[in-house]
């Protein structure tokens, strides 16, 4: 059975439809990139997919959803809030447990945040905050990761290593991306959106960046 199956779906917010008659099917194990101009409906489609998957996926929303007063460590720990007892969660909030620090230390290192592990997120730069949100999704025990422009505020070198670790850690990945090169490099399927409709849906095998130009024309 497909992971997601949409047939002539429409969606939107504030009463206005952003997506029109979208049909698509995504299987487990696919690495999907959603591309298109801003306002094309990527975020809406991602949210629609997230709702359909219903709780199985980790999510990196565009607004990140971080708790600004907590540290990077605690924000990442939140990815497994459902895996521990309330008591353990509280204790870990009051004083980080050694075991958790070790668990999360690996992810923090991948993300290049080892110096900021115990800094409050509110005090960090946009890129650091974004990496923290990715960290939380990586730490979450889910096989599927959904991300809305998860590396938009990070430099290219770091973007690549982050996307690599996402691809390694999660079998199924669906990311909305605006950087075409990165989208092609870390996915095996590209879905192009324009004005709320799917205008292309192809495998990335042998595809060149220029093949996507039509999405950004006019």
């Amino acid at each position, binding site marked *: 059975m497909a992971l997601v199956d949409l047939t002539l779906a429409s969606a939107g917010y504030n009463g206005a439809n952003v997506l029109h008659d979208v049909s698509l099917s995504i299987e487990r194990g696919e690495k999907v990139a959603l591309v298109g101009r801003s306002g094309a409906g990527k975020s809406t489609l991602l949210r629609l997919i997230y709702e359909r998957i219903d709780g199985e996926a980790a999510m990196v929303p565009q607004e990140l959803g971080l708790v600004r007063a907590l540290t990077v460590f605690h924000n990442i720990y*939140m990815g497994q809030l459902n895996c521990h007892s309330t008591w353990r969660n509280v204790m870990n909030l009051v004083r980080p447990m050694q075991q958790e620090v070790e668990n999360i230390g690996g992810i923090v290192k991948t993300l290049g945040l080892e110096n900021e592990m115990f800094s409050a997120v509110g005090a960090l730069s946009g890129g650091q905050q974004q990496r923290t949100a990715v960290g939380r999704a990586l730490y979450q025990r889910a096989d599927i990761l959904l991300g809305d422009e998860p590396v938009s505020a990070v430099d290219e070198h770091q973007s690549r290593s982050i996307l690599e670790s996402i691809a390694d850690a999660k079998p199924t990945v669906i990311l909305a991306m605006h950087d075409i090169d990165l989208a092609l490099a870390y996915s095996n399927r590209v879905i192009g959106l324009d004005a709320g409709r799917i205008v292309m849906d192809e495998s990335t095998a042998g595809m060149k960046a220029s093949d996507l130009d039509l999405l950004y024309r006019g």
Partner: protein
Amino acid sequence: MQAVWRYSPAVRTSLIFVGIAFLCLIFADISISTVNPWTEMGRLLLGVVTPDFLATESLVNALVQTVAFAILGVVVGNIAGFFLALIFHYRAVRVGCAFVRAIHELFWALIFLQIFGLSPITGILAIGIPYAGIIAKVYAEILEEADTTPLKAVPPGSTATSVFIFVRLPDVWAHFKTYSLYRLECGLRSSAVLGFVGLPTLGYYLETAFRQGHYSEVSALLILFYIVIASMRVWMRRNLLPLYILGAILLLPWGGHEIYADNIVRFFTQDIVPQPLRDGVFEPGALSGFGDWLSVLFVEQALPGAVDTLQLTMIALVATGVLALVFFPLLSPLFFGRGGRLGGHVFLVVVRSTPEYILAYVCLQLWGPSMLPAIIALSLHNGAIIAHLIGRYTEHMKVRVDAPRGLNLYFYESVPRVYGQLLAFLFYRWEVILRETAILGMLGIATLGFYVDSAFADIRLDRALVLILFTAALNICVDALSRHIRARLRLKTTIEHG
């Protein structure tokens, strides 16, 4: 077509209120009844400049007790208020909180005195219960306005408690802390005032010193009190809090005030049962007797008391607004340099740190019992609070380089910009002023508090309770009206200053 000049809604509302206040003032008794008010004032001022810190060995004790009651009361109110805030979406909780905070701390104290006597429980609950109601409301508002986006990123299946403490709490914690500190300041004032009904806090010694004309002792007590309040941010440290709580518990005079279950039972089954019903509701004539009792109580006490209370409230409210407009430039960098503002700060800190009740008590000693001392006390205290908030607001106000100066700056640049804020704060404090007005009756002005005090003096707790409930209802009505006006004029206050 020529445009027609019209006042803005805010100005129209203000004019209506000024008109009402003016009408109230015509009918108000504002005479000075003492023969030599200025000689007494002179003696008081002499006392103020010659504080006697060695007047009584109880000076330090009075302060310690005041702080101890305040800390425990606020801690109890904070804990209860916090949990109530979590279930604030239930209508019953909202109504219950509105009700307990509509009753002044002094009334609560008078009630608990009947059950627990002078046991510290009386003071702790008298502060804790109304504060729980206020804190619940403010915390609920803070939670409502907090960032909820992280909730979307929480893995499903997490327990509600885990989500709350990880996602909701960290975000609002700083607000809670700030507000708690503000509440502690209020708690210190409340605690001081509780001395007037016999608890061993500042008010107790202040009243005695005043009665006997020992103004140097009055001055010493008040100066120490201001220092305690002004230095609060220095001594109130989170890591010291457990120590303070323990210390407060150890220092309060628990001994010798036994609490008997009999007293509690008697209070609920006899004392507060309306007198005509005490022999049983089904006794012949009990219900008609109750009807007469209630109507006499309403016609002779509740209604005249309510009229005087509202009259005084309206005058005090408008006077507060006027004083706030006069006072705020004292704190504003637009009008005064550093040195000038320092003087303004000291003046406003002193006036707003002194509880209205104590201010009114002082004025009453000087000028005799009319509405005048109450008007002055209420408007000074509340005017200073609002001026402080507005003054701080103008610190961030940018005026153009070529802006006018002096009065032109005041009328054309400052007042128009702060007026909305000022009205918002003023209407916010309307209910506070009403609650205080009622209480001032205990000092001899014919507001509702006068009748409540008389009922307690006559050991008629049934009447006292009905009058307190009536006062609370009046308070809730004014609160609703104020909220309605604020919504219509689209006025908003920052939550920190509930």
